[in-house]
């Protein structure tokens, strides 16, 4: 039985006792329009307006400010900056800055990945303006006070010590080193104890001056604010950022050698971690969507992937197994991970290899492809069901030049992927001889697959 949709216009009461606003509902394929907001100084932001929940979210991403830009002997620089920006800005020391955020229930956070540096705010509507003020203050007048630096250093060093005891982390770190070698992508985002000891205020100040510019800035916002207001805030705060971005150095694309390898790292743990993968596909490659659908079929997040079917549903060997495409700017990856009882590692990796080999030879069957496509299309609104997710998605749309109408076009690109496309992409990407696998656990406990013990 299909639900009858009620009257198309839904009236909602907006908080703060204001006038009723018309909220236009939209079909699963339609979203509110993406607005390109331009400030007088020329900065752009993409905005999606909603007035049903009185919150706003915004993200500012600085291209190339990621950990790959850390100098060789100063690894951890970008990450440290991300930890220090909320520890005091302008006239506000760490405590005062924190109190001001809390006075307005503002969430301010900073993230770093290999490629980029991002700053995000999330606030109640009445705190949005202040949130922008404080975000801008943090970017433009960071204090980098000595006690804050010492705290962040100690926290990061302590984290590194802890992470080295986590098999999943060690496996990932080792795998990246394996596939990227000496390229910056092969480094650890947090650096190491020594590099963290070498970093100081001058490094952070220089970083901020170089990387927080209008030339490499991408802005997106969503929620209960309008274009005019956003433009005003951008003008007020971002016009004074340096106009040009001058990269520190040229980061070469990673050269991933096409041979496979397997490495083991010894750790005395009850459960082994395994990371696997190989070179991926750039975001702007015409076959990206075919690869995206293929990856979902192989190890996408749902409980119905081919790898989950084999390793969990049939074998009972893992609790979870996943794979993902990671199209980093200078080296795209396809990477997956799982954890399993140590004596099962050989059998599990054997099954993994045979699945990859099979797909490399045959692609995937039509029903499998159809199911993957149906999921990716049907679940798309769930990727955008809250304001923060929307703001971050709008950043990605700009980063990868997907176009303002991407939300309307994306489903068609997914739907257009054919069995032949997938077979072609599998041949291109999934040569089992190029598979790199890292296992972390007890080698001595690994045995050839044994028969399961008798159960009551």
């Amino acid at each position, binding site marked *: 039985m299909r639900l009858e949709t009620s009257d198309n216009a839904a009236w909602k009461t907006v908080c703060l006792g204001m006038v009723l606003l018309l909220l236009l509902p939209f079909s699963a394929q339609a979203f509110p329009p993406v607005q390109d907001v331009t400030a007088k100084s020329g900065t752009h932001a993409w905005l999606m307006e909603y007035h049903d929940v009185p919150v706003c979210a915004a993200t500012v991403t600085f291209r190339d400010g990621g950990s790959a830009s850390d100098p060789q002997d100063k690894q951890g620089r970008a990450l440290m900056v991300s930890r220090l920006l909320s520890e005091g800005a302008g006239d506000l020391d760490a405590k005062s800055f924190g109190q001001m955020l*809390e006075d307005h229930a503002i969430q301010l956070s900073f993230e770093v990945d290999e490629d980029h540096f991002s700053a995000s705010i999330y606030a109640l509507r009445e705190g949005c303006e202040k949130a922008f003020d404080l975000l801008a203050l943090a970017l433009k007048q960071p204090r980098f006070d000595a006690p804050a630096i010492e705290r962040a250093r100690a926290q990061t060093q*302590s984290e590194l010590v802890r992470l080295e005891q*986590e098999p999943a982390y*060690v496996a990932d770190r080792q795998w990246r080193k394996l596939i990227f070698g000496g390229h910056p992508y092969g480094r650890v985002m947090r650096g190491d104890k020594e590099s963290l000891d070498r970093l100081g205020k001058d490094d952070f100040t220089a970083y901020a001056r170089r990387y927080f510019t209008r030339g490499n800035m991408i802005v997106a916002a969503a929620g209960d604010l309008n274009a005019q207001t956003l433009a005003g805030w951008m003008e007020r705060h971002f016009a004074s950022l340096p106009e040009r971005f001058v990269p520190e150095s040229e980061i070469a694309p990673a050269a991933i050698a096409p041979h496979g390898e397997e490495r083991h790292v010894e*750790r005395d743990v009850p459960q082994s971690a395994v990371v696997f993968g190989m070179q991926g596909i750039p975001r702007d490659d015409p076959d990206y969507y075919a690869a995206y659908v293929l990856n979902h079929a192989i190890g996408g997040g749902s*409980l119905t992937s081919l790898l989950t079917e084999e390793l969990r549903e*049939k074998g009972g060997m893992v609790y*979870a197994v996943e794979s993902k495409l990671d199209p980093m700017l200078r080296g795209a990856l396809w990477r997956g991970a799982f954890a399993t009882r140590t004596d099962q590692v050989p059998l599990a990796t054997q099954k993994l290899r045979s699945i990859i080999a099979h797909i490399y030879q045959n692609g995937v069957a039509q029903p499998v492809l159809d199911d993957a496509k149906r999921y990716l299309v049907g*679940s798309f609104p769930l990727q955008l069901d809250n304001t923060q997710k929307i703001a971050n998605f709008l950043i990605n749309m700009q980063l990868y030049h997907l176009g303002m109408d991407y939300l309307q076009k994306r489903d068609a690109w997914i739907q257009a992927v054919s069995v032949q496309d997938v077979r072609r992409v599998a041949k291109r990407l999934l040569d089992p001889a190029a598979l790199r696998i890292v296992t972390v656990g007890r080698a001595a406990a690994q045995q050839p697959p044994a028969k399961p013990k008798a159960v*009551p």
Partner: protein
Amino acid sequence: MGAVFRHRCCSWAAALALACAGLFCTTVVDDAAAADAIESATLKNGMELVVIPNHRAPMVSHMIWYRVGGADDLPGKSGLAHYNEHMMFLGTPALKKGEYSRRIARHGGNHNAFTNKDYTAYYANIAREHLPMVMEMEADRMRHLSPPPEEFRREREVIIEERRMRMDNKPESLLSEQMDATLFLNHPYRLSTIGWKHEMETLSQDDVMAFHRRFYHPANAVLVVAGDITLKELRPLAEQYYGPVPAGVKNPRAWSKEPPHRASARLQMRHPNVREPLLMRRYLMSGLVDGDTSRAPALYVWAQWLGGSKTSRFYQALVREKKLATAVSVDYDGLCLGPARLNITARPAAGVTLDTLEREIDALLEQARNAPPSEDELRRAKLAQKASIVFTADGLQGMANLAGEFRMAGLPADFAQRWPETIDTVTAAQVLEAGRKELDITRSVTAWLLPEAQAPAAATTAATEAEAPHAP
């Protein structure tokens, strides 16, 4: 409180954050309460319905909550409720193994389930047009669950693997598990929801099916649907799919109560994979359901004030001023049927002993007994509580999750909407008093997590980190 999830998409931390951070926070204006009015009803067979309209997208979050959790596990059979949750995906006569998941995925839905001490919940987030399909499948597996024997054996291996991932590979989790087992002298909250491994290994098909027959009934369930729907639209569907299922009984929950505590407990755990010590302390306290419930609102504010953010008393004193810790937090979980828990967690700075850290924490707690929060501190703590409900309303599933948790605790589904006024009336004096009355060291366990082979008095963080010996 931590929930165990069927799939790795959700973690202890995420569940805790969802449960605690989203609770008891008010919108800053009362009108918000009227905006998305929650509607409730009950079917003839006792199944409750709760509807939370949210028309941002034509999607719904369908959550079915059963009043059965880890604390209901039978003696000697810990992990049963969670195992039952896993088995729910593995076959009925109409839905063979994996078919539930495949259908949800094929229709563009996300789904999962989770178990904690009080409840087990199953959710599917999907386009509203597929709601009947979801309901049909949920009603089917509620009533007709019957996976084949080999699935029980195989899935038992899966949950043991899950235990390895969440517990055995994480010394901090292992210790936390021991803390509950120590802190609760008699109450079934002492049980591990994922289960003790030696008991998990013996759980049988008969165990699960008997458990399922006992607890999985409409009278013992609450259906919460949030999204592009109204009660008027949902009710006929609920009647059609859930109505025919025989009522069963509501879980009477005859749990053993805690006797008076007369001694503070201490635990010390050494583990080869620990490089830096960790201090944890857990107190029993009154909550929203158990004990002196009138204190709970003040306790939320109290915990937020003491250790809920970087400007909190504990963080300021321990991390920023005295540099005794690199991290500290105070978390209060008042939304549970049994005794509520307060957690204090602190990581010592390099060269600082757990003994020193603990003494400093005790000094701060003593200070908090003697002087209330300042006006600014009180305002900030209350605002944090209030704002997080607005943030929870931003998104498809958040409010459904809250409503379900409230109903599982026996509180009204719209408790979140009524909370604003209560939080607003909390005074500094009440916060002071609640802390004084509730914080009782004889109702606590203090745990030290240490590296191997060091005397406790000299336990320090590693001054230098040697290269891990076997790393290539």
